[in-house]
């Protein structure tokens, strides 16, 4: 093989390597751009899909509070995170004592007390697409309520068909120990504040629009709240309005 042929081969190989390297760099560039676009779109999505984060002591960072993590936390501590424990907090409002205020984004329910105070309870609220906002009233209260899944819920989950005529109240009933029925004027909104068989789910966007509390808390609220009490539901991003 002549020297000029070897030089040609080396030159050709060099050119090919340069072209391949450019292709690799181009792919890196494209991947980075797609990555940035994804980060921006996730950040935009996060602004609308409000959820909670919990601080992980082992990993030393804030992580999404998912149903799996909520179950694990409850199993480990036998309670929900401390933020969701029932407590009296300062609350500056012109609303009358006895009014219920629900903050769907922060997962708190407030019962207004005299002297600019309120009892704050942790709650679970509607998952994405099931949140709602509005001003309604307590229309009815029930101990150990019977649960009848709405037709739309049965359509979404055919396993519920067996309860089409209602499930009697009791420890297995998903409405838990008490239900407070929310009305718009004289009309039942079909939304309730109720107990739960899944106490770990407090702090999550998980329900079909009902407000769920742990059973101890809903029993406490039930005995304090009066029929006709005003209920203000604040839920940023919810498209469904009630009573306004």
């Amino acid at each position: 093989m002549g020297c000029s042929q070897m030089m040609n081969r080396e030159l050709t190989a060099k050119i090919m390597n340069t072209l391949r390297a450019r292709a690799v760099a181009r792919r890196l560039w494209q991947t980075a751009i797609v990555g940035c676009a994804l980060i921006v779109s996730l950040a935009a999505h996060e602004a609308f899909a409000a959820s909670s984060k919990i601080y992980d002591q082992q990993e030393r960072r804030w992580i999404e509070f998912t149903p799996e993590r909520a179950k694990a936390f409850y199993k480990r501590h036998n309670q929900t995170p401390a933020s969701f424990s029932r407590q009296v907090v300062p609350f500056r409002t012109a609303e009358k004592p006895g009014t219920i205020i629900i903050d769907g984004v922060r997962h708190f329910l407030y019962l207004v007390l005299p002297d600019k105070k309120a009892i704050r309870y942790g709650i679970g609220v509607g998952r994405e697409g099931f949140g709602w906002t509005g001003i309604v009233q307590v229309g009815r209260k029930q101990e150990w309520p019977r649960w009848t899944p709405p037709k739309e819920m049965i359509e979404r989950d055919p396993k519920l068909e067996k309860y089409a005529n209602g499930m009697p109240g009791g420890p297995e009933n998903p409405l838990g120990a008490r239900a407070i029925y929310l009305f718009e004027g004289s009309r039942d909104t079909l939304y309730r504040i109720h107990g739960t068989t899944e106490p770990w789910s407090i702090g999550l966007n998980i329900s079909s629009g009902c407000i769920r509390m742990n059973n101890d808390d809903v029993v406490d609220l039930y005995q304090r709240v009066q029929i006709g009490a005003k209920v203000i539901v604040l839920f940023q991003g919810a498209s469904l309005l009630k009573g306004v």
Partner: protein
Amino acid sequence: MRKFLVEPSMRLAAVVVLGVSLAGCASSQPDTVSYTQPGEIRNTTETAPADLQLSCASAAASQFGLTPDKVLPTASSKLADGTYNIQLMADGRNYLCKIDENASILAMSPA
């Protein structure tokens, strides 16, 4: 072993883009603090506290002669100076309210 030859300018561009991309990832993460308590919860969206939202609703009802039971806070956000912007809805109209941490109304106007 074959090595790819990468032009310095392309290498620099790739490093810069990856760096910016990673910085974007890092800045989108919340700050971690060593004194955070186990089980502490916070929200991905910082809305105004419920009592401040209702203070704005009440002030709007007084200022614009609205039925108090029909004024609903629909959105809120925290501003850099620690105050909050709150959007209200009443009778199909929107109103904007600005309030501080002490529940003092700083501004109110139809949107």
